[in-house]
């Protein structure tokens, strides 16, 4: 079923691809909306596409390299470090990274470092080591310690499953067709995501695409969340009413006398 679906979608993609100049990259997602319901335990999205080559393009030697990123919305995220204060371990130092993605996954055909030179990777923010981790001006952390915070940040995000680097996970089905699967964990933050694809050849970027992906709660989860935020008073009153009813009900059911 899945295969038929991808094949159909693929045909659709191929059909509407108007050849432009040189190599053209076309990508499509298995779904452009991930909805979180009460049974949500994470999901996967399949990204597939084709490197289109029009007839006028002279076939260049060398293999193509691809990188695909899935990025969440950008937020300010604070990393804290504990230190001993009066014998007790407390959060003492912190560094706030501004405008960093809440979720970041990258899939590539080969190790990120081999795709292109450092400057290009930094510019494209491609690979975990190339995400721009800018700090706020009011940081009190000495310069020499900042890299420790950056490393800790990346490590913690990876441990939480929110930053993922999967090298060599893009597979070529034919010379020009490729596919990869990116797992979205259960604790994935909601928001608008961007899926970016990059086509490299011999270390230089020759084409790129971008597609939106939405991660949102739906149904009961959405209603509850909206209510908690938009009508907090009513939400609180309902919570209390449910609690009182449950307690009273239990008291009545288990009544001994």
């Amino acid at each position, binding site marked *: 079923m899945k295969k038929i679906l991808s094949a159909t979608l693929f045909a659709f993609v191929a059909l509407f691809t108007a050849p432009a100049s040189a190599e053209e990259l076309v990508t499509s997602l298995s779904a452009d909306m991930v909805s979180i*319901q*009460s*049974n*949500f*335990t994470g999901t996967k999205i399949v990204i597939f596409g084709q490197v289109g080559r029009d007839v006028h393009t002279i076939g260049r030697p060398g293999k193509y390299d691809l990188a695909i990123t899935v990025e969440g*919305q950008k*937020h*300010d*995220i*604070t*990393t*804290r*470090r*504990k230190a*001993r204060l009066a*014998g*007790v*371990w*407390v*959060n003492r130092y912190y560094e*706030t990274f501004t405008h960093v993605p*809440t979720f970041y996954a990258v899939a590539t055909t080969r190790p990120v470092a081999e795709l292109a030179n450092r400057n290009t990777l930094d510019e494209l923010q491609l690979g975990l080591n190339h995400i721009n981790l800018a700090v706020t001006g009011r940081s009190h952390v000495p310069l020499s310690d900042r890299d420790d*915070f950056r490393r*800790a*940040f990346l490590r*913690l995000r990876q441990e*939480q499953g929110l930053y993922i680097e999967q090298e060599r996970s893009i597979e070529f089905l034919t010379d020009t067709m490729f596919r990869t699967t990116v797992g979205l964990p*259960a*604790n*994935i*933050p*909601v*928001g608008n995501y961007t899926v970016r694809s990059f086509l490299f050849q011999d270390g230089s970027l020759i084409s790129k695409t971008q597609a939106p992906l939405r991660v949102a*709660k739906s149904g*009961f*989860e*959405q209603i*509850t*969340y909206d209510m*908690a935020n938009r009508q*907090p*008073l009513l*939400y*609180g*009153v*309902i*919570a*209390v009413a*449910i*609690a*009182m009813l*449950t*307690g*009273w*009900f*239990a*008291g*009545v059911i288990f*009544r001994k*006398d």
Partner: protein
Amino acid sequence: MQIYLPIAELPVNMFVIFGMGGAVGFLSGLFGIGGGFLLTPLLIFAGIPPAVSVATVTTQVVASSASGVVSYWRRKMIDFKLGMMLFAGGLVGSGLGVLLFGVLQSLGQLDVVISLSYVVFLGTIGSLMLVESLRAIRRHREGDVTAVKRPEHSRWIYRLPFRVRFHQSKLYISVIPVLGLGASIGFLGSVLGIGGGFMMVPALIYILRVPTNVVIGTSLLQILFTMAAATIFHSVGTQTVDIVLAITLMIGGVIGAQFGARMGQQLRGDHLRLLLALLVLAVGLRFAVDLLWMPSDLYSIAIKKGGGV
């Protein structure tokens, strides 16, 4: 069975949460306590964000105390006037508590304040209860049947102005210590996610000299109202009450409580108090270890604004 929590924004195993609610409910029925001080750390340990754990436990405490109030009400063992007066104080206290909660959360020091307070309060009260229950057990063994010598009236409390008569409790005392007590426990309750029953009961007996037969019912009534208010304050102030988590906990909790209450009737009072003292001390100790030992990971992450993570 995994269920996604809409406010905590992560999936949990429903049966694990149900089991936690049931186990804590059992203990709360056994000892006549709300059990918040056990449930909050358990939830944090299970991976629920501390802010959500604290706020949601206040809702769970509403359910467990409501079921207790129903049975004490039926036996007419509640001093409503005293309960409402304590609640009036509690309202102010829990409002302030929620404000402090928000400030600490934004400073990133919420966890350490919660841990420190647990160590101090559980340590103190656990030790006091341990000493008291061991004495009671020794007396019992020596066959001493004379009534426990009650402490002298705290004179200064009786000299305070604004005295009010509480008929059910046969008291004529100033409203100041009553309001103050309600406020302190409401404050701690909303900051720490506990009902404070284990502090309220001894305070009513030893400070206000309320007769023991109305103490538990009155304390439960005050906890019920204070925690209901705390739930609403948390909903409005921090939006961290997770109703799905709360319902799962309270269903487990009220069932466990009934079994606990039945078992409690078969145990001797001083033995029960000894067990509770050990439990309280163990939880306090657990927090102390966390604060004093070097953490395995010095770093942690917190998002500044918005939902998620």
